[in-house]
């Protein structure tokens, strides 16, 4: 379930955003959690915001922090170098911040330093890419990458069945191949396909950039003269992927996306895309909220539980023409 997703529009930040799905309709508005408490310093470090989704992650985190007058945010933004990110966390430890929100370039690689922060008495909220040790984070908010792959694969199976495609050709355009999250997505996709007796016929990996998406998609189209279903992991690179389809004049397949950018939602509305699997960029914003609560020793008012939970996994729902209206506001600019 999605907890306290916020919109990207800064002007809406002042009002407490409603939990979108699952949770109670009145959100956390009823509790005293949004009342200003003692000022807390939160350190936030994320990977290099080199594409739309990550930029949205950073922006929404910063906007979220700005919406609280009792939060002072220190950002150490922007690196794909674990060594540098470790040193950024060390800086936070030196400064003695009250909590750290960490979206690591790689969960395992930042575990050592996160443990050190925890040992120094600074609670760490782990976002999106999970640490390899349970002692490294006070709370963990995860997008469900494996679930994303499952959703995409299941949806693909559904399409095959509904349209009665015999011997379908299934293609996959992955993101940066060496990231665990990409592998999780691909694994989920393969598992779900296996459930309906299918497998990926052609796979390429792009780099989350428009250019690489276009390049790899063009190569993919060349490699497979006829395709029935394509799953593209990431709607940012999807802009390029889509352009490659247009360039080649190919649209014989069902095109499924990932993440849920504004563009993707638009295409779904226009009928140019079948569906996209949501992967909200608001996790870090949620992380800021949790960090604030933890630092101020508060709990989550929607839960009976007194304290903030240790682990929250976000849902990865499928957005298609039937429900796109409900998700439009979540779409981020890629």
């Amino acid at each position, binding site marked *: 379930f999605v907890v306290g997703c916020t919109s990207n529009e800064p002007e809406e930040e002042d009002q407490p955003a409603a939990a979108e799905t699952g949770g109670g309709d009145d959100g956390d508005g009823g509790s005293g959690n949004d009342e200003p408490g003692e000022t807390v310093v939160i350190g936030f470090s994320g990977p290099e915001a080199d594409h739309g989704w990550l930029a949205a992650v950073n922006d929404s985190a910063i906007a979220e922090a700005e919406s609280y007058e009792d939060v002072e945010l220190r950002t150490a933004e922007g690196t794909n170098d674990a060594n540098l990110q470790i040193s950024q966390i060390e800086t936070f430890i030196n400064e003695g911040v009250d909590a750290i929100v960490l979206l690591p370039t790689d969960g395992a690689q930042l575990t050592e330093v996160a443990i050190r922060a925890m040992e120094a008495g600074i609670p760490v909220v782990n976002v999106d890419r999970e640490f390899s040790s349970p002692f490294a984070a006070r709370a963990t908010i995860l997008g469900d990458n494996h679930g994303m792959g499952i959703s995409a694969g299941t949806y693909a199976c559904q399409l095959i069945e509904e349209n009665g495609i015999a011997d379908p050709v299934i293609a996959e355009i992955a993101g940066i191949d060496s990231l665990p999250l990409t592998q999780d997505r691909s694994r989920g996709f393969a598992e779900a396909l296996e459930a309906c007796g299918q497998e990926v016929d*052609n796979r390429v990996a792009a780099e989350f950039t*428009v250019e*690489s998406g276009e390049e790899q998609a063009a190569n993919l189209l060349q490699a497979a003269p006829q395709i029935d279903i394509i799953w593209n992991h990431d709607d940012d690179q999807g*802009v390029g992927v889509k*352009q490659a389809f247009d*360039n080649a004049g190919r649209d014989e397949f069902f095109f499924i996306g990932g993440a849920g950018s504004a563009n993707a939602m638009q295409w779904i509305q226009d009928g140019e895309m079948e569906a996209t699997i949501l992967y909200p960029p608001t996790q870090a914003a949620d992380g800021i909220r949790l960090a604030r609560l933890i630092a101020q020793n508060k709990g989550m008012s929607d839960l009976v539980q007194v304290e903030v939970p240790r682990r929250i996994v976000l849902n990865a729902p499928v957005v298609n023409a039937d429900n796109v209206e409900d998700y439009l506001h979540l779409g981020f600019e890629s």
Partner: protein
Amino acid sequence: MSSPFGRNLGLILALLVLCAVGAFTAGDRFVDTDNMVTILRFASIIGVVSIGMTFVIIGGGIDLSVGAIVALSSVWATTLATQTMAEDTHWLLMVFVACAVGVGCGLVNGILIAYGGMAPFIATLAMFAAARGLAEIISEKRTQLVDVRGLVDTINGEFLGIPVLVWIFAAVSTIGWVLLNRTTFGRRTIAVGGNATAARLAGIAVKRHTVLLYVVLGLACGIAGIMLTARTGTGSGTHGQLYELDAIAAVVIGGTLLTGGRGTIVGTIIGVLIFTTLTNVFTLNNLDSSTQAVAKGAIIVIAVLLQQRVSVRSADSS
């Protein structure tokens, strides 16, 4: 001096071997006009940058900022303001803006190197950081969609059945070849790269010429920027990543000396084709990216060693 054919014999051989491998492993999917066009279209953008890079390297320099300049020019050409103006006037305005941005960056590089006395590696490393940062600031890290359809339709379209991108690459290559081999500009480039002191004492304005070389490369980056903009339908701060390594690799595989003073446009073109064909063959064979990387490393080594052996032999027999 041996004929350009002889000099590039090893390279051509390497390319042919690669094609044979492609034909053998991927069959009809490789030996197919559409596929050839795909390869060429893919090669066209990095190709234009590499032609420009050839001049800078022959002139004794190097430029690490080409990818960043490509990104900056694509972003600048697709800002709301530029696009609005282009809607009002003509899409060529966007082309002009991209080229102007490229030339501007090249000018800064050139002036820092020639008049500031900075090492090319360092000056362009600074530009590498600054131009990409600026591109991100301007685009606010968003991908800017192109609404001016004329640009995309024309440059990403076809002319006489061949993609306009490939025409542009062909035109830039031809101009580059003539410039290097048939004009005083080309001669001066070789002189400046071969022996800057001798060139200066022979009355060549070495500093001014050096600036010009980076401007030429900047212009090539601007052209590549608008090509990439049209091809992807977007301007983005992430465009052109690793172009610096790709372009330098293509130029050097093509036989241009990194120390300057010697090099050919034809070699560069073949170098670009080797790399793009390689990627195509890999994709057609569904190779995963790690295996691709290892194979790429091995092939670079083989291609270069082959080229050396063959050119030594052909020089002997001449």
